[in-house]
């Protein structure tokens, strides 16, 4: 059957007694209990747990549920389905976040700029205009046979 009314989440706790009762309900210490701010979004008295994913929990400790690294009765995060081991990992990276972002963006922007430069200055085999014999085919192109053909210089490559 369902949970009884006093075990379900309730309204935002206003007095210290309500806070203590809510902390007891969620199986937390009163010092640790911190509800979400009361801004009309409907969190009620659900505790605001630190945004840490299950990757950060000790893999070698004997958890009650080892696959999700969770003990029985422990309060679950509001976004717990985001923080399981198949989804987001919030464990600290060896390199700080802003360094990672900076290095990656430097790499990506360098590549894109160089690709752009490569488009402007492409690489190709050396080519030259075609050179025809017989004074640039003067007679075959309908030139006057009595006149002197114009001088054509050819280059040897």
């Amino acid at each position, binding site marked *: 059957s369902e949970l009884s009314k006093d075990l379900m989440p309730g309204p935002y706790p206003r007095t210290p007694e309500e806070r203590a009762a809510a902390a007891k309900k969620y199986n937390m210490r009163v010092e640790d209990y911190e509800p979400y701010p009361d801004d*009309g*979004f*409907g969190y009620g008295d659900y505790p605001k747990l630190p945004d840490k994913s299950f990757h950060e929990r000790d893999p070698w400790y004997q958890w009650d549920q080892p*696959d999700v690294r969770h003990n029985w009765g422990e309060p679950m995060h*509001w*976004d717990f*389905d*985001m923080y399981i*081991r*198949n*989804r*987001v*990992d*919030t464990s600290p*990276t*060896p*390199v700080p976040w802003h360094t*990672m*972002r900076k*290095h*990656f963006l430097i*790499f990506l922007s360098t*590549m894109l700029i*160089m*690709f752009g*430069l*490569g*488009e402007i*200055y*492409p*690489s*190709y*085999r050396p080519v030259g205009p075609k050179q025809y014999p017989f004074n640039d085919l003067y007679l075959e192109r309908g030139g006057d046979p009595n006149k002197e053909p114009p001088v054509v210089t050819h280059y040897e490559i």
Partner: protein
Amino acid sequence: METTLLITSMLLTLTVILSPMLLPLLSETFKNSPTTITHAIKTAFFCSLVPMTLFIHSNTNVIVSYWEWKLAPNFKIPLSFKIDQYSMMFFPIALFVTWSILQFATWYMATEPYTTKFFSYLLMFLIAMLTLIIANNMFLLFIGWEGVGIMSFLLIGWWQGRAEANTAALQAVLYNRIGDIGLILSMAWLALTLNTWELQQASSPTQIHTLPLLGLILAAMGKSAQFGLHPWLPAAMEGPTPVSALLHSSTMVVAGIFLLIRTHHMLASNQTALTLCLCLGALSTLFAATCALTQNDIKKIIAFSTSSQLGLMMVTIGLNLPQLTFLHISTHAFFKAMLFLCSGSIIHNLSGEQDIRKMGNLQKMLPTTTSCLTIGNLALMGTPFLAGFYSKDLIIEHLNTSYLNTWALLLTLLATSFTATYTLRMTLLVQTGFTRTPATTSTNESNPTITNPIIRLALGSILAGLLITSYITPSKTPPMTMPTITKTAAIIITILGIIMALELSTLTHTMTSPKQNIYLNFSSTLGYFNPLTHRFFPTKLLSNGQKIASHLIDLSWYKKMGPEGLADLQTMVAKTSTTIHSGLIKTYLGTFALSILTILSTQI
């Protein structure tokens, strides 16, 4: 006459492949087992040699159309198979490689429960892949496309109790799905403008609009792990080694490139799309080769090598050379599958050790496996007259003699030298030097189930290039004249890479361990791409999704659209009309005047 024989033998091959799926349904006593499935694929391989020989002899392209699904009065989808150079050559190669992998897997997966289910999954994957290859219309291709994606998910997450394997399988499916957006976009465009999904009708005399081509390139990006949608391929190494050998080296990852080969007549006229392919491929091949330089897991090195070769195939598509791309696919299948099988043999013999820093001197302990590993690595580097040479050297020659983006050319050449470097690093750390394995490992490769497939694939990787190029006439004239330095560019760059690797290995033996520096960090964490994308986007998507689904929708429907909204409306109306109900004579006189003025103005 020959055409009939061709089609009949093709259908026979397909039936043989389907038989392990169908026979248990028809007979009550027949049970599948790994050996029956292996034998079925072996028979199918020998059957598929018949249509290949007939095709090479007659050089007739055939499109076989059966039945028709009348989706709409003007739009019919037949079950059509295209029998042309690509499908006829790929069938024997895929079946040969699959046969060797299945034979190897009978030994590798012997200690697993549910081996028959594993082999059935591999068989279903093969059926989906062959459907993709032989499809003549986009619908059948899409069926095969999705089929290989799903089987990849099931096979990567084979050891489903392991959270990393599940994450990797999920990654594979999601990245493939992003590519599928592109494929469905181009299918929709084709259906709207050309009213067909048949590939032979898709070439119009005018230029094809860039949008469907971008869709196809996105599909190839997703399926073939180009830069931007690449993280799933190294993560897919969580699956068992036969899965990595079959899917993520020879067959599934080439499906994206194969799509671009099948639709190359649409790409050929659009220079923007070709340049995009070229640049994307060059970036992918360099990025993957850079990441492979600092990896320590043997399977990850081979995975990045696959990713790099896929980038090279994309570069070849960008050069408008589909036949050469297909040649590279074929030769790559042989030596890459062999590399994975050798690594699987090494891993099993060292009782699950995958870190190359803990292997050494395996040349003496596992001579056959490591010799074949060397042959595979030489073929990968493009050693003259092994299989990889015929395709890779030709690609680099074409690159050097074409009109193309200079940076793409430089990146590809750099990636070729990196290929030599990381291959040699892997060879040196695994096969030579002092033993770094624990002293009590018992290595044993006397089982012919291991050695026969590996030796068969080694023979294939030596001979395949020569055989294929001898019997298939090229459709475009290759560049014939070029300066000596251009002709030998590939060899020189490979040798430079080898020298670099040897230099670095002597450095590691004589100097202290490397400290962290920018380039080492960038390379070993795969360019920071994984943490940056896999933390930022899912967090934003999932938390915003949760907020919209629970807070916003609850807020709007239960509150604003319901009681609270109604209450707000009421209070607003009440507040505005309070001024009139206050009892002051001035307001009453004002309303009288206003109403008389309104009535008078309507009368006039």
